[in-house]
């Protein structure tokens, strides 16, 4: 079964990648990493050489930070929404 997943990006990521929202099609129950690989420019931004996610980006799956799910192995289902942005740290 194919899952439709909405990815929304914000702030400087929009400027860098030139888009706001995309719908990607993956196998249902794919991992977050497999979803990100569908968007190579986004994947390159978020994942380092050791295949680890950069910690300065907030990645939410249906409003919950993926660290509180299964990290990069979080399973993505049809209709899931992923929000990604680098929160500002300054003041």
């Amino acid at each position, binding site marked *: 079964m194919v899952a439709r997943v909405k990815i929304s990006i*914000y*702030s*400087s990521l*929009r400027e860098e990648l030139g888009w706001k929202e995309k719908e990607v099609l993956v196998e249902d129950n794919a991992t977050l990493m497999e979803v990100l690989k569908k968007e190579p420019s986004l994947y390159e931004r978020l994942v380092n050489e050791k295949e680890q996610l950069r910690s300065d980006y907030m990645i*939410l799956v249906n409003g*919950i930070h993926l660290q*509180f799910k299964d990290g990069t192995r979080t399973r993505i289902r049809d209709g899931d929404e992923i929000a990604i942005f680098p929160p*500002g*740290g*300054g003041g």
Partner: protein
Amino acid sequence: MSLSDSERERYDRQLRVWGKEAQLKLKKAKVLIVGVGGLGSPVAIYLTAAGIGKLVLVDDGVLELSNMNRQILYTTEDLGKPKVYVAAERLRKLNPNVEIEAIKARLDEELAYKLVKDVDVVVDALDNWETRLILNKACVENRKPLVHAGVEGWYGQLMTVIPGKTPCLNCIMPAPPPPRETPLPIVPTTPGVLGVLEANEVIKLVIEGRSSFEGRMLVYDGLRGEFSTIELKRNPNCPVCSKLG
């Protein structure tokens, strides 16, 4: 507690919006602002102008020339002076009805717990995630609302933490990101926009007991001229807030 003739005149335009009872709630309220830089300047100015009863300001910084593009509480003559004391003096001149307490210190866990206990609302106007997470924990454990904002470049975000009800900062940023090797780029107006919005949420929390950003984050994009919101959920496994009902 009542309003003097002078206070009724000073607050005339806002009394026409929310009335005397709401103004008295503001007059009774104590607010802690952590950081009096780019965000803290507009937060403190507007809350003072609005007639908050007491502001507690915490910052350990001394005014540097590179602060001057955005930290609008200060003048060039203040360079080299502790920001928190200069801020307190300016704010007392802006509105002598407001009690201002200035604490020159870097916020650590012990100070956070001590200060958070005695106020009604807390404002995060900090410049780093490490201290934000300390402040967040103190607010959650003392069940005090925390209005958060952070900025970088043309962008910023804002959310309100209501302990036990909404996600806390630890839910969305479980660990501080690695420190930067160079100063963060900041457009002068970005902390201005976010700081004014923080002050606006504090006013609503005091007057109406609610914020418009409970469980959702406002993301500001000053380059595109856009505001977006992201829906947030409490993390059932959050080590800081998940035990609160």
